[in-house]
């Protein structure tokens, strides 16, 4: 009889129950917040109330970190990711645990719970925490948490170095949003938008680098198409999407609207990760404003275009930013990657053609439509056009988010823009492109910032977060940190990554690398289901190379 052809029984059943999807996760999140008990207690009930099998609730609730984490009355999320690790030389968790008197993953006295999360987007001012939804950031973090100092959360330093900002056009140059959309929609300029974006050579900025216009075209122009703005900026070290969603959400929405126009889509979803509560608030407000201003809704600006946008909150999972996993999450399921084909552009959200574009990608679209694809294509390099936001971590002298032309040498970004490392700090290795990216050695920074060039040096562009590790941490500690991230965020959908990420952590934690480690890296790299598992081996290999002799035996 065969199975459900690229789907699964739970999805099909949920489909018959009216596509509750995101409502299930919302209801689960609500229950998680209200209940001191684990998901075993409330998740089955929540699902049943929505007419779904109990198992649908429990499966999802135990998958997402936010839902599974024990909750006290006061819930603190502490960042365990790269920049915060680098800022406190790996001590930040212990410091916060001591300050609050509760271990990570537990509920302590005074009903305080502590959850380790991987990146809150305060990498420029690490370490960071969210006390409830209130950020506490910086070297005085523990005092802030203990109540000795008021919470501090410096704004993201943002700077354009190109002279003609694209993504930062609003934030640094005061360019108004929603200037392109009214005319585009009124004149039915779908083809023109598609053509300009095709001419621009714009590629996905979320890491995969897929040509945007090709993805739009792949959806085939079906009116059922759904466009998803992926605001699940999971890469530790990158906070560009947070900047855009908090400081210029309207530009992202305008880009999303233009993408919908080009795809013929009437529905869009903005997914904002739960680690960015401020971005969620701002994005929701921007959507409300856009409806009020007639940019969204029925018969937009007198045209025949109807466009509805919904904002959905994530629930704590790195892999859930991968497009198939993201769609699974929007359907209320476990945020696991699935094998492709079918590709989401053919069979995505509830089987509708689905285009998933990263927030930064969408933020570039209004500029491209206004100025023309060719104007964009002239920028960057010939093969990798345009500009890119790069994020520099706290260890730099001048951390912040910079818009640069693609092809700018990394060494220029590090030394000229970032001003090198803070006084007294010596670079051990530079992580480029997040946990699935790679590491460059201090003497190997003369690499143009393009996907192709970085790949040649064992790194990757990824989301273009640059996290500097100084000499206070050893290569071995960084290696262990990378494996910790992999083990904590592996979705578990495929065995190489599910077992390999834990085993890799065990091996780096205890022993010396053996033949087993070599085989493990090979299986993970070649056989994993999605890019997460496939990229981890490359990342740890490049790390081993970046540290040279120190990690020589780990270069396998």
């Amino acid at each position, binding site marked *: 009889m065969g199975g459900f052809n690229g789907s699964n029984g739970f999805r099909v059943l949920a489909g018959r129950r009216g596509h509750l999807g995101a409502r299930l996760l919302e209801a689960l999140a609500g229950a998680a917040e209200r209940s001191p008990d684990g998901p075993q207690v409330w998740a089955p009930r929540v699902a049943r109330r929505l007419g779904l099998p*109990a198992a649908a609730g429990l499966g999802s609730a135990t998958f997402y970190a936010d839902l599974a984490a024990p909750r006290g009355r006061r819930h603190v999320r502490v960042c365990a990711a790269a920049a915060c690790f680098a800022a406190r030389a790996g001590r930040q968790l212990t410091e916060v645990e001591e300050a609050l008197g509760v271990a990570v993953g537990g509920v302590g006295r005074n009903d305080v719970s502590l959850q380790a999360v991987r990146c809150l987007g305060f990498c420029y001012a690490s370490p960071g925490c969210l006390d409830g939804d209130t950020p506490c950031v910086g070297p005085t973090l523990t005092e802030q948490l203990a109540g000795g100092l008021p919470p501090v959360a410096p704004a993201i330093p943002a700077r354009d170095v190109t002279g003609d900002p694209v993504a930062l056009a609003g934030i640094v140059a005061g360019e108004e949003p929603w200037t392109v959309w009214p005319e585009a929609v009124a004149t039915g300029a779908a083809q023109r938008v598609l053509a300009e974006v095709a001419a621009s050579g714009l590629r996905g900025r979320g890491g995969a680098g897929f040509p945007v216009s090709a993805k739009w075209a792949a959806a085939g122009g079906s009116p059922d198409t759904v466009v998803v703005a992926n605001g699940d900026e999971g890469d530790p070290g990158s906070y560009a999407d947070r900047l855009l969603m908090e400081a210029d959400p309207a530009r992202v929405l305008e880009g999303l609207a233009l993408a919908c126009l080009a795809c013929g889509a009437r529905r869009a979803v903005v997914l904002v990760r739960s680690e960015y509560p401020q971005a969620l608030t701002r994005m929701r407000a921007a959507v409300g404003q856009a409806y009020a201003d007639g940019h969204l809704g029925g018969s937009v600006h007198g045209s025949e275009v109807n466009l509805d946008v919904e904002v959905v909150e994530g629930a704590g999972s790195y892999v859930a930013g991968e497009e198939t996993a993201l769609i699974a999450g929007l359907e209320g399921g476990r945020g696991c990657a699935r094998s492709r084909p079918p590709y989401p552009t053919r069979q995505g959200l509830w089987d509708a053609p689905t285009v998933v574009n990263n927030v930064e990608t969408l933020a570039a679209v209004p500029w491209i439509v206004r100025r023309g694809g060719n104007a964009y294509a002239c920028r960057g390099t010939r093969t990798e056009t345009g500009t890119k936001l790069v994020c520099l971590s706290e260890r730099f002298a001048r951390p912040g988010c910079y818009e640069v032309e693609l092809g700018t040498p990394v060494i220029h970004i590090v030394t000229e823009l970032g001003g090198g490392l803070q006084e007294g700090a010596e670079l051990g290795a530079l992580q480029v492109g997040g946990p699935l990216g790679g590491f460059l050695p201090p003497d190997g920074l003369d690499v143009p910032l393009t996907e192709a060039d970085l790949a040649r040096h064992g790194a990757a562009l990824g989301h273009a977060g640059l996290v500097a590790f100084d000499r206070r941490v050893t290569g071995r500690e960084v290696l262990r940190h990378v494996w910790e991230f992999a083990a904590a965020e*592996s979705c578990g959908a495929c065995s190489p990554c599910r077992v390999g990420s834990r085993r890799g952590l065990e091996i780096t934690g205890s022993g010396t690398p053996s033949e087993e480690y070599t085989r493990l890296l090979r299986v993970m790299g070649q056989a994993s289901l999605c890019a997460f598992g496939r990229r981890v081996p490359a990342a740890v290999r490049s790390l081993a190379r970046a540290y040279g002799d120190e990690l020589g035996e780990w270069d396998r």
Partner: protein
Amino acid sequence: MRVDVDGVAVHLEDGASLLDAVRLAGGELPTLCHDDRLTSVGSCRTCLVRSGGSVVAACVTPAVDGAVVEVTTGELRGLRRDAVELIVSALPPRALDGGADGGELARICHELGLAPDSAQGQGGRGRDDTHPYVHLDRDLCIACGRCVRMCAEVQGTFALTLTGRGADTVVAPGTGGSWADSDCVSCGGCVDTCPTGALTEPGLPVGDRARTSGRTHTTCGYCGVGCSLEVLTRDGEIVAVLPDHDGPVNRGHACVKGRFAHGFLHASERLIRPLLRRDGLLTPVSWSEALDHVARGLREAVAAGGPDAVAAISSARATNEENYLIQKFMRVAVGTNNVDNCSRLCHAPSAAGLTAAFGLSGGTDSLDDVEGADCLLLVGANPVEAHPVVGARLLRRVLHGARLIVADPRTVGLAHHADVHLRPLPGSNVALFNGLAHVMLAEGLVDDDFLRHRVAGLPELTALLDGYGPDQVAALTGVPAGDLLEAARLYGRAERPAIVYGLGVTEHLHGTDGVRALANLAILRGAVGTGHGFGINPLRGQNNVQGASDMGALPDLLPGYAKVTDPAARARAADVWGAPVPDRPGMRIPEMFAAARAGTLRTLWIVGEDVCATDPDTVRVTEALETCPLVVCQELFLSETARHADVVLPAAAWLEKDGTFVNFDRRFQRVRPALDPPGDARTDFAAVHALASALGVDLGCRTPAEALAECARVAPLFAGISHERLDREGAVPWPCPDPFRPGEASLYRERFSTSDGLAHLAACPYLPPGETPDDHYPLVLVTGRRWAHYNSGNMTRRTANLQLEGVDLLDLHPADAARCGLGEGDPVTVRSRYGRAVLTAHLSDDMVPGQVFCAFHFPSSGVNTLTSRHADTVTSCPEYKVTAVRLIPGCV
């Protein structure tokens, strides 16, 4: 499309995967997360091949024309081995127990040469052994999700999920607590598909299969689905009963009953010696003593009242051969047509109604066809509980896109998945079906061409249906007119609709009318005998209730449904049997009891039926048994009926018998003994022969195979069927007049089997039920089956199924409960005009206010003392589905 696998060209259908291609080329790959019945997910990543320059998991990679696939290079072999080794590295060493004879993972490791020390997991995740039939060892779980997909996609219960993430991912019951308290319905599918032994059943630890000494293929002896099973035995004990992956109906699936409920075989109260009533007490005696007593009694009865003073109730649980022999014994050795079987109490209206409409006494199409339907109309049946494997297959069809209309007062089983759920008042079926027919006719949702050429009775029906407009029907049935319209349109507009129904249609005062009115819909739609639509198909309750009737264990019909009043049919049988066949139809079961009470029936022989528990109005049934001078009972246990018998003969159970059953879609399938009967217990086949011998009669056909061969000579419908053929071919459906041609799974493609060759519409007016509630008995009681038990429960109550459902519940709506002052779990006394039962209240929103529901699996509760003496006006099938009752809190 053509795919090159290591230089071998294979040709594949669209939609095939690279795994299909590799297998077709004769290759083998480890596939730990794959099961052909389930969606492929590519989770274990061990079926690695190279195609298009990349390493891919073959199971989830679509084959494309011209693809070149590398499988056997050293690099790929190594990679696959490493992928398996990585999985094993996290498991404890016991994961490899059994080696080549172990579970799937152990076997693969053995083949790949992975040593047990590859498994270096520390374990510590714990076990869940709370459930009687499914045990979980979390340390062996590899998160492949096969069990989860099995439960969702094949069983349709959605009881399981993967929980946690990353390395902590592990299967768990979705309700968050123990397995025993979960939604699991114990189908065993998860255990069956688990590749590692994380899920096992007690008694069959993974890696232990080699130690089983016997394997017997047989057919399940519980409900009428006809699941094909493989019975593993060791030292005269059953180790496990596994579903047969090639089973034509179950296709590798089973349910809590067939799969697990075999413990009754060795229950301490199993009858192993004949019992004879002496000084009022049933006393163990030898077979010869018991048989002499019966023979003497029979002779006395015939001497005093003629052959018709003797009657037999044959058994729907017995084999065809046994039923054949029993009816032959009655007709030949005694000389009476007084033989009936329990289809009288369930689907006699189907036999009558379907024969009148179409010509043959059975469903019109096979389940395989029904599964191809785009719209299912499920009426008065809860297959999810009563016929779980069919329920699962129907749900699967619905999840694959078929529309579903359920007509049932309760929101149970498939009703949760219905596009339209009609909830007619019990007893209002005919009005409901007429209402649907009215809409179909009014809106032109009928097959005019079919009606013109192949149907009789349209004018009469059209005239009748004038009075069944949606509003009128809404008033009669309580079904909102809008729902009626929607249902009629869904069914009427479907390309290939199918009707499946159960006892909710038949067990009524006008049950036969119900069947006719329901059959009208299929006829109007041209959905029977045409290939566009799959007719109308009853779900039979017991394993061989179809066969018992097929074999002529009926008072008016000979084997193969020839009428006893037809001289030619009698002559044909007499010719084979070498004895005359009585020409007057015999008594039906209720008439037998009436005759016993009246003193005219002097011997009643009851084979495998607990009539004191399962027949309606049991107070009067018991009275009949007490009045009858000789009651002989063949039983597994000392049932209520056996307690009232004069002679009790210990019987063999289905796992101890040789013969055949006919399932609900008319398939003959082999039944083979996995064990010997215990003690002096005998098969009914042997017992009938022994009794005939005691009377000095030789019935011939010494073996079951000979009996079926003889039946084939008596009944043209079965002329092509024999044990030898079934052993060769598996299942064969009847009609099968020719040993060299297949049986007819779908009927009436050329013509209907009625005398004029036409399908007959019936103009049956709605008539009210026999039982109506009043101020004194304000509620309507409906009885039926629950998932873990079967019929009187004499088998299932003697197994661990009792741990799954151990309390006899009365389901009622919370509003009724509040009115009666009842809370969840309270004891409640149910009174009807006939009797009294004590049950436990269970509040449920699945019920309609004013209606209550219970099963009759626990005879000691007395449910069938409540049910009435009303019966179908055509066939005497009891009106089980409507009894007016009142509730009194407590045990009074």
